[in-house]
């Protein structure tokens, strides 16, 4: 008799999350994504209480290895680990000293030798997290690798949408802006299409990746057309160095053509939800009054859901290690 945990999906009993690592949304089944969202709900409740603490990760060591600068994601993972009782260590790796060569693998081996129980990694190169995951014994969570994936961001976005809209299936979600360089966009496309949303990508042609339609989305270069009837408007950050003529002529022109203002938002569904992964360039991709509109904007809620989703991921991925029955 197998005593592995199961979850009913389409009339079958399946393992809720049979993965060692979370390197991306790619490779996850829709029910596995939904499982992580369901797990996160309890942490939303806990985080809203006064005693925000649980001891299930007591004695385990979480290492946040950030090879690329981050404030909010690092903080979010740190809080998530601490609220579950883990010993959290942050390793900020200077861009210049550890970047290339065997060093990355060596760093992975070093972290492994220190008996980390969970490693959270952010790296500027696509695929770097997978490379490390292949070399270590403990669960690895991708906190963003190059332009590839940022799975916990997609999960927190999905949780935010699900809580605000009551569902994801059937919603029209417009992902707008610099899709080309965005790992947030890729992970969101994978997760939202898997969960049954109709996903559009909207942006200047220089910032939309080729063959993006092959990921099951519709491509728009006209902002108004892309927003038409959308239930969720997800704005992406435009990196400053890309505003200066390389990809778009200027921040001013970008705001005029692709910046989210109330006038623009009027094209979307009347109750359309506005999202942004942060940090925002106010006045460039999004107008301040839209970003700060508590009725329409879910931006602060996204940050809140981030902690809950990361707690869920840390809990689920360490269950085998903690000897949770069946895992």
């Amino acid at each position: 008799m197998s005593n592995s945990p199961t979850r009913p999906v389409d009339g079958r009993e399946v393992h809720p999350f049979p993965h060692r690592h979370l390197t991306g949304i790619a490779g996850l089944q829709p029910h596995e994504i939904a499982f992580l969202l369901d797990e996160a709900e309890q942490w939303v409740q806990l985080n809203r209480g006064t005693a925000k603490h649980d001891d299930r990760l007591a004695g385990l060591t979480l290492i946040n290895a950030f090879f690329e600068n981050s404030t909010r994601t690092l903080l979010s993972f740190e809080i998530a680990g601490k609220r579950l009782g883990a010993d959290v260590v942050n390793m900020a790796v200077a861009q210049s000293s550890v970047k290339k060569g065997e060093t990355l693998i060596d760093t992975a081996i070093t972290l492994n030798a220190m008996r980390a129980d969970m490693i959270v990694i952010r790296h500027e190169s696509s695929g770097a997290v997978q490379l490390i995951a292949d070399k270590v014994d403990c669960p690895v969570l991708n906190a963003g690798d190059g332009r590839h994936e940022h799975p916990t961001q997609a999960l927190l976005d999905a949780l935010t949408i699900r809580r605000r809209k009551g569902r994801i299936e059937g919603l029209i979600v417009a992902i707008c802006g610099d899709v080309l360089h965005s790992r947030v966009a890729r992970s969101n496309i994978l997760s939202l299409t898997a969960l049954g949303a109709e996903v559009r990508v909207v942006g200047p042609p220089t910032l939309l990746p080729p063959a993006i339609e092959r990921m099951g989305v519709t491509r728009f270069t006209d902002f108004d057309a892309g927003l038409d009837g959308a239930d969720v408007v997800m704005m992406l950050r435009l990196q400053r160095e890309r505003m200066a003529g390389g990809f778009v002529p200027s921040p001013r022109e970008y705001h005029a053509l692709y910046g989210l203002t109330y006038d623009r938002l009027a094209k979307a569904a009347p109750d359309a939800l506005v999202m942004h992964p942060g940090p925002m360039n106010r006045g460039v991709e999004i107008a301040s009054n839209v970003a700060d509109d508590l009725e329409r904007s879910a931006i602060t809620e996204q940050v809140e859901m981030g902690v809950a989703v990361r707690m869920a991921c840390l809990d689920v991925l360490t269950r085998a290690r903690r000897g949770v029955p069946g895992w």
Partner: protein
Amino acid sequence: MVSALSIINGRIVTPEGVIDGGVLVRDGRIAAIGAFDIPGDAERIDAAGKLIAPGLIDVGIFAIDPPAFTAGGITRAVLMPDRAQPIETVALVQHAAAAGKPRVWVHPLAAATRGLAGVELAEIGLMREGGACGVATGRQWVADSGVMHRLLSYAGALNLRTVVHAEDAALAGSAVMSDGETATRLGLAAAPAEAEALAVARDLLLVEATGAPLHFRQVTTARALGLIREAKRRGLPVSCGITPAHLLLADSAVTGFRTFAHLSPPLRGESDRQACLAAIADGTIDLICSGHDPQGPEAKRLPFGDSEPGMAGAETLLALSLTLVRDGLIGLERLFDMLAGAPARLFALPGGLIEVDGEADLTIVDPHAPWRIESDKMVAMAGNTPFDGLPVQGRVVRTIKGGMPIL
């Protein structure tokens, strides 16, 4: 030194077709083909029904790697000038030319420009005197059309063929893949496949203007092959090559960030791959090369975008190329013309075919022998092959260089 060598009971691959019989070698040259009386002093090799073929001539290698060449039946190799110190002096030409002997003869290509920087002409006339068989722009494209025009005029007058890398550098930028679904899903920097045709179009116009012979080391896209097909029809002195990787793999082989599939030019989409096969069948592509570029873990065990391009291809060149024969795309005569005959003709090298009085550079091939390509069992300096784990058919069983069995 063996004075006479008699290879018997084989199937000899000649330009006219495959014939039964043997090859008699004396003093490093082919003395007889087909049926002959075996001299009493001759060492004998019984080919036992296997193919007796010309030793392969591999155009555009990046490393002098005799064990890999011998294992692959390669007896001559045309070396790219991209060395730690680019081949831009007579001394470096001669040093490189001696580096593989006696197992493999290396024929260096002279650096077309100083330091391969694409700005000033290197001493290609002197290097020709020193034994360079052609000139090459290296791994990079020469962006300056004025330099390229002068280079072709100058090299053409010296009867040197110019080998170029066909990829518009500005359009390619920092790309590590060709545009497409795989690059988009993986979030890797990618460039339009047109970067190749753009470079080919310019160079063809300059060939037309100068009349100088030019070889595109690797051409991998439908658009570029179409341009070359049309240029050849008009009689321009252009030729091109391709590696088995671009014939057998598409960009989807990169899935999972497989750095062994990081190549330059990058793997293309499936429709381009099909166009490459069609260009093999109709003769647009002149030769198949290994692109031999062994890269160790320090260059490959990295995030994809930080890894070096290139594959170790020498010892798998023949087995992978034989797929084209088994699939009915081309015959054995044409395959060995692409692997030996055409390289010899294009770069005025000895060997390349089995003929009386020709160089006794030979390989004996069991075209049916099954084996599995395994990265960690390769004899090359490094085992970076995108074909790791692939079962293949066809194996080199003997390699004979200048009448001397070395494998």
